[in-house]
Each structure stands twice: as structure tokens, then as C-alpha cells.
């Protein structure tokens, strides 16, 4: 019964999504409000039925309905409730349903929240949102049905009969016994049984699916010819929301890799990691260039390309991950959805580009102003966009372009790995950091090198002084010092600009600095949230430079009682606890180690290897032990070895300097994005009453 309800709800969601497309477009073209409203209501019904379908699948996972083949393949009776809930996105079929549900959720939120304020954009926007959603629901219905059930068609043989998978009971078929299904259930991929992995995919999916909304508004603007800045206003906040979740997803993914994959790092330049990073790059470029269109009415065509490019990159990345085009620890198994996915991506991109060129040909995307200065903020933002696009090109080429082209046309299979990315991307990242430091100091319209030089003087001095800390820490690597300087400059500019605004407010109003900071951030959350994001990215940059250039590693086999010295630390192997059985049935081999520095015992580490009996494929997981400080992580992995026993074991030991700044910087970035996303109108309302009593204008440096 449960499977039928979920399956029928999935079909109904598909039908209502299709109806919403037709109704919205037809109603808008014929100017028939009732039909448009009918389309809107159908999109809401698509969300409701998608919620029912997703809820049914989740309920089946929680209540262990093993006859449903998806439940059987991703859970087993030993799994704790938490992982049963998260196994909704633990494999291809469930994750597509979850993805479709998120798409309908974003669509219904955008429709409800923007219906009145952006009424003219909505019919076509609904059509595009529902078209993308219908494609994903269609994938579930045609290729990856999560509601298929196991049946046995008896044939009198010793095995009991032929096992088939179908939603509805085939003629003559019987349901397998619940006990046999439960005993053979596979359980979730061990690599996914980690708290980070439980949150990382939903965050990424929220980011990916969130970009559907700005894409739909852009396409709606192109389709309707309503190319004023309304689509920008409608989509900017949605872009920030999507960007926020995507950033969070990337950070959590890095943390999961660091904790679970057992190689001492957080970013492996794996094609699937890169596939998630590519939309982030283009989305970030869009968030910057969209300001130029808002302020100066420029870059209209370019912004269209960026917003469409972002969603196109989302779909391409998803295609690459789900189709089996690339293999990695992140990708799903090879599947039949590759061709329809590729076709959808291709059509989406071609139609979008065609619409842009059509409207451009009509002169509707003409710029309203010209660049007046090479040092104006808009000119620097264009440079920033060029670098983001160059990074996109370099990473796309390394992840997909070169491997695919070499295989198709040169009859050879190549991998572009960390070597390639470390050769190509650092100069581009350095250029981005430089622009991040300079651009906020320039003004819209007209700016001069003299003005810029004057504004940047104090942040440069502060950056040079900060370098002293690194010199005192013993850093003499010239490349690292240059890198630190560039990154510090971007951070100091963000802090200094905020300080200048606070100081002006304090002088003008006599407020204390904290309330002045609150006021300026309330009045312009986008600007000060943006500075906070820049600060977060600077902190991440310091962590990345430190942990990449100065990582120390060694591998040793130690007998119990032996010690090894590395980077001023001593690691002592105290005890081995083999074959420990946890509540969820995993077997754990645990090494007990003590970290010592300057004769003092700092902490006890328990790196371990988890083995999941009865699980096919990857059935082991490496959980590192780490002693974390702001200075570094002392990170130890217990390696698989024939010698692993009560007597001796092999360890790989890493010292990762400043790595925790990557996570702290990430937190700052997320907080800044939340501030930037807060609706300015709401903040203004809160301060409006106070401003009525004290309507003194604030001198806040360069305008934003």
C-alpha cells in the first residue's frame, strides 16, 4: 500500500508540473488570469504531491519496509534511526526524489513570496521551474523508481522462483518473507555513515536546486521581454540563499573528507568535488556582476550568461556525478539516466543561449552606461568576473575537458590531478584575492589610481605588520609570504572599511562602536555581510596556504610502547583494541595513542578502522584521530596492514598547520552570507522609527 501511495503521488506531482507549464505559458500568452492562476495552483499541488511521495519514502525507510527495493538497498535492521532517516539521499533513486522535492519546495516558496511583487515574471518563471522539476520527477518514474518492490514468481525450483522488482504485484507473484528481506538487507554505504555526510548532501542539494529560481527568473525575463532590473531584484536574494547552502555544502564536504576519507586533506581536486565547485564559481561571479547592472545598468547580457551558466553547471555536474561519466568516491553507480540527463543539459543550455541572443538582437539587453575609469568598481568587478570565468575554465578543463577529449579524439585516457590544479589555479586565486582587496575601495563610476592608493595604504601597512607574525612563526618560504600578504590584504580591507564606517557613525552620533556597527549593518546588510564574507574567505586562504605548503607527514609501523617523533611532537603507541563491536554491528579496530610535546602529554587519540560485515563494495571506513589547535592539527590514521595486531600497527601521521582556519573562515563566511541575505527592507523598517528622531546622514566611505 505504502509503495503504491508514494508512486501514485509521484505521478500526480509529475502531471501537475506538466499542467503548470502549459497553463502558465498559455494563460500568459492569452492574458487569461484564471488560467495563469490555475498554473500557479498546479505548481503548488506538484509540491504537495512531491511532499507526500518523499514523506512516504522516508516513512518506509524509518519503518523498515524492506520489500521496497530502495529501502532494502540502503538500510538494514542494525542501522540506527539517524542513518535510516539520512538514507533518503544515500543512493541514486532516493536522492533524485529528494532533489525533486527540494525543487518543488523552492518553486512554491518563490511563487508564494514573489507572486505579488514580481507578478509579471511569475507565469514564465513557474513554467521554467516546473519544466526542470518535471524532468527530475520523470527520471524517477522512468529510470530510478524508488518505490519498486521485490516479488518472487514461484517456478518450483529449489531457489523458490524468479525474483523481480515492480511497484505493483505481477500476476502469480508472492511477496518475499519479511525475515528473509531483513536478513539480506544491504545497509547504507559505510562512507555515508558519518554525521558530516548526513548534512553535506542536503546542503549541496539545497544549493544546487536553489539556483533554479534565479535561472527561472532570468529565463522568464527573456521569454516575456520584461528585461528591466526586476528579474535581478527578484533573483538576487534567491541566488544568495542558494550560494549560502552551496558554500555550506562544500565546507561540510571538505570536513567529511578530512574526517573519513583518511588522506589527511579536505580537497582532493576530485572531478565530483570540482563539479560542485564550478557552479559556486560562476554563481559568485554573478553575485558581483549583478551589482553593476543594478547600479549602472550595464552587463545585461553577461549577467544573463552567468545566471544561466550557473544552473547549466549545476545540471552538468549532476549529470557527471550521476551518469557514471566520472568515477570517484562521491559518484553514484553507473546508471541509465546518463543520456536523458545529457540531453536535458544540452537543450537547457542551447535554448537559454538562443533566448539571450534573440533578445540581444532586439536590443533589449543594451547597456545604459559606459565605463568611465579603469579603476572604477565596475571595471574591477569585470576583471573579477574574468578571473572567475578563467578559474571555471581551468577547473572544468582539468576535471572533464581534457579527460573526455583525450579519450574521444586521442585514444588515450588521462587524469589531471592535484599536480595540474596546483600548477594552474594558484595564480588565478591570487589575482582574485588581490581584486578582493582592491575592488571594495574603488567607487562606482569614476575612480583614480591615486584615490585607490590612498585608500589601500593603511590595509597594506596592517598586512605587512601581520606578516611579522608568520615570520616569527618561522615562515621563510617566499611564495608563502607573498600568498599570506595577498590574503591578509583582502581581509584587512574588509575590516578597515567596516571600521571606517563605524568610526564615522560613532563621531556623528556619539554611539558606542557596537551599536554603531549594528546600525550600519542593519542599514546596509548586503555591504557589511559582503565584507564579512571577504573576511571569511581571507581566513580560509590563510588556512589553505598553511595546510598546503607546510603539511608534514610520515608513515611508521610501531610496536606497542614505541614512539615516533615528528615536527616537535612525540607520538606513543599505547594499546590496541581490536574487534570491538558497536551497536550498529560494525567491527572496530582502535589504536590508543598519546601525543606528547615538550615532555607533556597533550591528548589521547583513538584512530580506528571500522569494518561493516555483510556490506558489499567499500566496507571499511577510516576514522582519524586528531589533536586540534589553532596552530595545527596533529592527525593520525590507522592504516590497514597485515601487521596490525596487539603487538604493532602502521600509522600515517600528519601535521596540518593552520588547517582549522579553513573551518573557522567557513563559519565567518556563512555568517556573512546570512547577514547579506537578510532583507534590507525589514532592517530598514526596524531602524526607520529611530531614524525619524535622528535623521542625520551617515558618511560611510565608498558607496555600495
Amino acid at each position, binding site marked *: 500500500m505504502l509503495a503504491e501511495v508514494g508512486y501514485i503521488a509521484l505521478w500526480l506531482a509529475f502531471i501537475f508540473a506538466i499542467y503548470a507549464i502549459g497553463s502558465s505559458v498559455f494563460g500568459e500568452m492569452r492574458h487569461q488570469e484564471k488560467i495563469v492562476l490555475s498554473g500557479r495552483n498546479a505548481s503548488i499541488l506538484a509540491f504537495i504531491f512531491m511532499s507526500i511521495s518523499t514523506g512516504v519514502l522516508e516513512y518506509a525507510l524509518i519503518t523498515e519496509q524492506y520489500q521496497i527495493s530502495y529501502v532494502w538497498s540502503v538500510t538494514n535492521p542494525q542501522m540506527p534511526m539517524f542513518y535510516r532517516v539520512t538514507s533518503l539521499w544515500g543512493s541514486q533513486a532516493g536522492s533524485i526524489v529528494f532533489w525533486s522535492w527540494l525543487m518543488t519546495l523552492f518553486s512554491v516558496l518563490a511563487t508564494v513570496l514573489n507572486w505579488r511583487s514580481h507578478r509579471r515574471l511569475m507565469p514564465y518563471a513557474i513554467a521554467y521551474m516546473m519544466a526542470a522539476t518535471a524532468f527530475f520527477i520523470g527520471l524517477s518514474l522512468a529510470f530510478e523508481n524508488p518505490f519498486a518492490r521485490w516479488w518472487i514468481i514461484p517456478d518450483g525450483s529449489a531457489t523458490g522462483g524468479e525474483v523481480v522488482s515492480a511497484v505493483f504485484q505481477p500476476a502469480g507473484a508472492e511477496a518475499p518473507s519479511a525475515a528473509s528481506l531483513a536478513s539480506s538487507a544491504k545497509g547504507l554505504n559505510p562512507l555515508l555513515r558519518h554525521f558530516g555526510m548526513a548534512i553535506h548532501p542536503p546542503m549541496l542539494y539545497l544549493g544546487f536546486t536553489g539556483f533554479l529560481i534565479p535561472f527561472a527568473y532570468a529565463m522568464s525575463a527573456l521569454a516575456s521581454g520584461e528585461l528591466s532590473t526586476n528579474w535581478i531584484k527578484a533573483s538576487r536574494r534567491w541566488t544568495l540563499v542558494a550560494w549560502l547552502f552551496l558554500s555550506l555544502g562544500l565546507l561540510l564536504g571538505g570536513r567529511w573528507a578530512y574526517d573519513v576519507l583518511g588522506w589527511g586533506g579536505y580537497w582532493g581536486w576530485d572531478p565530483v568535488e570540482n563539479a560542485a565547485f564550478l557552479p559556486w564559481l560562476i554563481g559568485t561571479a554573478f553575485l558581483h556582476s549583478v551589482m553593476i547592472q543594478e547600479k549602472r545598468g550595464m552587463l545585461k547580457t553577461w549577467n544573463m550568461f552567468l545566471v544561466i551558466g550557473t544552473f547549466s553547471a549545476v545540471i552538468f555536474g549532476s549529470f557527471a556525478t550521476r551518469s557514471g561519466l566520472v568515477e570517484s568516491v562521491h559518484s553514484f553507480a553507473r546508471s541509465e539516466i546518463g543520456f536523458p540527463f545529457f540531453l536535458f543539459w544540452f537543450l537547457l543550455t542551447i535554448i537559454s543561449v538562443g533566448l539571450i541572443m534573440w533578445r540581444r538582437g532586439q536590443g533589449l539587453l543594451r547597456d545604459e552606461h*559606459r565605463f568611465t575609469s579603469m579603476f572604477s568598481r565596475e571595471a574591477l568587478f569585470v576583471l573579477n568576473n574574468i578571473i572567475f570565468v578563467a578559474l571555471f*575554465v581551468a577547473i572544468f*578543463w582539468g576535471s572533464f*575537458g581534457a579527460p573526455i577529449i583525450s579519450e574521444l579524439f586521442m585514444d588515450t585516457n*588521462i587524469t589531471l*590531478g592535484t599536480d595540474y590544479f596546483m600548477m594552474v589555479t594558484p595564480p588565478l586565486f591570487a589575482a582574485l584575492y588581490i581584486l578582493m582587496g582592491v575592488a571594495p575601495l574603488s567607487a562606482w563610476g569614476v575612480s583614480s589610481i591615486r584615490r585607490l592608493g590612498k585608500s589601500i595604504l593603511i590595509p597594506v601597512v596592517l598586512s605587512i605588520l601581520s606578516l611579522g607574525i608568520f615570520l616569527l612563526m618561522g615562515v621563510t618560504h617566499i611564495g608563502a609570504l607573498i600568498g599570506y600578504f595577498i590574503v591578509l590584504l583582502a581581509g584587512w580591507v574588509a575590516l578597515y572599511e567596516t571600521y571606517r564606517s563605524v568610526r564615522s557613525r560613532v563621531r556623528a552620533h556619539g554611539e558606542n562602536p557596537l551599536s554603531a556597527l549594528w546600525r550600519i549593518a542593519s542599514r546596509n546588510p548586503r555591504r557589511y555581510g559582503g565584507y564579512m564574507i571577504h573576511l571569511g574567505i581571507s581566513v580560509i586562504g590563510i588556512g589553505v596556504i598553511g595546510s598546503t605548503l607546510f603539511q608534514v607527514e610520515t608513515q611508521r609501523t610501531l610496536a606497542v610502547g614505541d614512539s615516533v617523533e615528528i615536527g616537535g611532537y612525540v607520538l606513543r603507541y599505547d594499546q590496541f583494541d581490536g574487534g570491538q563491536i558497536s551497536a550498529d554491528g560494525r567491527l572496530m579496530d582502535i589504536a590508543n595513542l598519546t601525543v606528547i610535546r615538550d615532555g607533556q602529554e597533550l591528548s589521547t587519540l583513538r584512530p580506528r578502522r571500522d569494518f561493516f560485515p555483510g556490506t558489499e563494495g567499500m566496507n*571499511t571506513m577510516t576514522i582519524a584521530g586528531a589533536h586540534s589547535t589553532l596552530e595545527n592539527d596533529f592527525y593520525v590514521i590507522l592504516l590497514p596492514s597485515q601487521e596490525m595486531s596487539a603487538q604493532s600497527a602502521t600509522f600515517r601521521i600528519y601535521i596540518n598547520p593552520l588547517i582549522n582556519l579553513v573551518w573557522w573562515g567557513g563559519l565567518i563566511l556563512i555568517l556573512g552570507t546570512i547577514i547579506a541575505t537578510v532583507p534590507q527592507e525589514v532592517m530598514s523598517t526596524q531602524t526607520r522609527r529611530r531614524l525619524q528622531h535622528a535623521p542625520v546622514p551617515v558618511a560611510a566611505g565608498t558607496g555600495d
Partner: protein
Amino acid sequence: MRKTLLIVLLILVAVLAVPVMAQVDTTAPDLSAISDDEVNSVAKQLYCPVCENIPLDVCETAACQDWRYEIRLQLADGLSEQAIIDDFVDRFGERVVGTPQDPTLRNLSLITPWVIALLVAAGGLLAIFSWRRRPDVVVEEDDQTQCSELHDILERDLAG
């Protein structure tokens, strides 16, 4: 008789010499002289030939453990890092290295993104210069556009 004895003696010497010579040829290299770190520093530059995109030094499959052992043997035999990498590329193809060893593939891989990036940059800079020369465009709004903007303003006002 003496001649026969000499032949027998020579054969005996030869028979005895074979294991001695064989012993010389198959002397196992001193693997303990090669540290795990030395093995990893080569393995780090290689990718698992079986599982895509996983560096050989961290891959945990049995096959990769065997390949790491092979690297240890090759290092003990005195092969240089580059010789070991070349050997793996010969046997498994260019996919086992992070950047191709073949000069054409290597150049193509490394230069192409820069060429594309430079083209993008040149395009961007040309656009900036052309925008600088171009006078401000007064956008002629047709009635429909003006009407739509007014319509939006009205709707926003109504929405409060």
C-alpha cells in the same frame, strides 16, 4: 682416465657454480632500507590504475598495496622516482599520473586552459575599452517596457 676425471671435475664445478651464480642474481634487495615515506613520495605522484581518481598512496585496495610493494622493490633495486613513474605509465597508461608524461598531451593539458583564459581576459579587456569609448546610451524604452515597469511599481505599492 685423467681426461675423464678433468671433465667430471669441470662438470662438478659448473654444477656447484650454478646455485652460487643464481644466488648472486636473485639476491633479494634490502627492502627494510626503504622507508614507507620513500614509497609514499612516489605513490603520491601516481593514481590507482583501477579505481579512478584515487592517489596510489592512499588507495586501500589489495591491488594498490601490491603496487606500493612493487614501488618499494623498484626503489630497493635502485630505480629513480622518475623511472618508476615511467614504468607505471608504460604499463597502465597516462591515467596513472596527475599530469601526462607524454610531451604533447602534457602541453595540451597545461597550455589549453591558459589559452582559453587569456582569450576570455582579452575579450573582457576589449569589452571594457570599447565600453569606455562608447557614449552613454540613452535606452529607448518602448511603450511596453515603460508600461511594464509602471505596472511593477504599482503592484509593489499594492503589495505594501
